[in-house]
């Protein structure tokens, strides 16, 4: 049997400290926590940076490092620094060195990097080793060369290699959410279907229980399946909360693709052991004939400057769409004539349909509308210039030529805010590998020695 303690769904999200302490008391074999995902958008992979504050990350990581020292077992984090790019891994390694120095801890640190060089990806594309998933953006050598970061999602094999170094702490770049949980129980011969299924149920911490905010759960893996036990005093896992978690952020509720195969839970059996623990058996792991890892890439998509104005005049509110359409047309013409080409002006109507756009079938105006102006351009200078051309229209544009010049509400000065570089995800592909470690780099260092 292998016990994996999962403190929370992600480092930086917080957890119930009593639940973590209870988990350490259960004598886990490993502590595993996720460090991120793509869910916060392309900025983080594009820039190779973390979403969470350094101070919050350091405070939580310090607690986990101390819990690890107390338990005397490995601590592993996957997708370090939100995106798992090499620079985000370096960021967390630096934080780890600081904590070790400040606390006098002595430990062995293994670092697994997932970053991919664009030229190596261009070679792989040429060799037919990169294949699209559904739906995949078109890719080319140019697209790959333009990525600021490309990462491959490590699976259990690469994490096992990191654990095999005898490391006390493993900091991994991009991994699948499940690999950090599945690696050790798979290495110790637990039931593969049960391991991957338990890892998927556990990857969001207590989200698969009745008390999602309690964070910490313990999963016990064995020869036939797994058992989930929430560590929060009030948290309960039920067959419903556990089986429903396969739906979460997963397009297919029965199948989960991982490097080297896929999990099939269509014949899984969920049994309540008591009021708060659930036992799952019957999950299947199907080995694939090719070993592939998923790729994620982000590249520059231009520069953005945004403006915000609020409109309260009832006649303008009633005619807000026509007002905005006229502004986009006139500002676009003027900016083309005076500052340059290649930009886009988009006005989003907050209070009408800013969230759903033309999909909204129930949009109606209230007493006021916020107009969010978004200018996207190939250079930062052009995005600012166009926003400044747009500015007088947002402030004073009249509905008709005959009326006195109106004035609308800018909440701040200047009304335009430079958002800098914006990024886009540009890969939904897999990379075929002859050897799982081919696309990954593993290094080891001693801290506090």
């Amino acid at each position, binding site marked *: 049997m292998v016990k994996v303690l999962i403190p929370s769904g992600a480092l930086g999200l917080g957890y119930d400290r009593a639940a973590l302490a209870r988990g350490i008391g259960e004598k886990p074999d490993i502590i595993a926590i996720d460090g991120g995902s793509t869910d916060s958008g392309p900025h983080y992979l594009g820039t190779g940076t973390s979403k969470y504050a350094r101070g919050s990350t350091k405070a939580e990581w310090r607690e986990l490092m101390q819990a690890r020292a107390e338990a005397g077992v490995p601590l592993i984090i996957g997708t370090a620094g939100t995106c798992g790019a090499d620079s985000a891994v370096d960021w967390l390694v630096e934080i780890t060195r600081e904590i070790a120095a400040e606390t006098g801890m002595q430990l062995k640190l293994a670092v697994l990097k997932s970053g991919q060089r664009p030229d190596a990806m261009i070679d792989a594309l040429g060799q037919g080793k990169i294949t699209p998933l559904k739906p995949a953006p078109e890719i080319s050598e140019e697209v790959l060369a333009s990525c600021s970061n490309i990462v491959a999602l490590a699976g259990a094999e690469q994490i096992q290699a990191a654990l095999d170094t005898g490391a006390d702490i493993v900091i991994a770049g991009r991994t699948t959410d499940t690999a950090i949980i599945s690696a050790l129980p798979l290495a110790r011969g637990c039931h593969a279907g049960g391991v991957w299924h338990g890892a998927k149920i556990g990857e969001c911490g207590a989200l698969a229980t009745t008390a999602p905010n309690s964070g910490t759960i313990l999963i016990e893996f064995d020869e036939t399946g797994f058992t989930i036990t929430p560590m929060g005093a009030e948290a309960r896992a039920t067959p419903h909360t556990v089986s429903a978690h396969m739906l979460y*952020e997963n397009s*297919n509720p029965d199948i989960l693709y991982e490097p080297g195969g896929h999990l099939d839970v269509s014949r899984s059996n969920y049994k309540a052991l008591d009021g708060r623990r659930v036992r799952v058996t019957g999950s299947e792991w199907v080995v694939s004939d090719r070993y592939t890892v998923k790729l994620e890439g982000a590249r520059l998509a231009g520069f953005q400057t945004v403006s915000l104005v609020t409109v309260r005049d009832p006649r303008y509110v009633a005619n807000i769409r026509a007002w905005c359409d006229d502004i986009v047309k006139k500002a676009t013409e003027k900016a083309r004539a005076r500052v340059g080409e290649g930009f886009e002006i988009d006005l989003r109507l907050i209070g009408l349909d800013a*969230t*759903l756009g033309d999909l909204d079938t129930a949009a109606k105006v209230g007493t006021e509308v916020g107009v969010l102006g*978004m200018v996207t351009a190939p250079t930062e200078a052009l995005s600012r210039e166009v926003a400044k051309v747009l500015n007088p229209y947002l402030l004073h544009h009249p509905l008709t030529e005959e009326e006195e010049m109106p004035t609308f509400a800018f909440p701040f000065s200047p009304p335009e805010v430079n958002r800098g570089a914006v990024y*886009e*995800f540009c890969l*939904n592909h897999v990379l075929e590998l002859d050897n799982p470690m081919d696309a990954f780099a593993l290094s080891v260092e001693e801290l506090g020695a």
Partner: protein
Amino acid sequence: MSRLGDIAVKVRSKNAGPFWLTVDIFCGTPEVFAQVCASVTSMRVASLFKADPSVVDRYEMASLNVLKLSLPRPATQGTRQDRDMHGASFAALVAELDV
């Protein structure tokens, strides 16, 4: 005629990666589940998202009384055209369907 949001326990939408959106309709009882499965056709959902019906994946999960629908995102997450980074607001569109 009632609205889906009024008879379902919960309608939830989330990203499933940057390129997919997944909608989970928790129906609560077998009766509501049967009614929802019969009424919320993949064709209707495709039309709601201005998508081709062939790209909508459908999972009728009787053991959970859940109808799950997955489709490519209306705009890829985080692109200039995207309006909702986490995709959770699309649930409102589905909840407003008449059933």
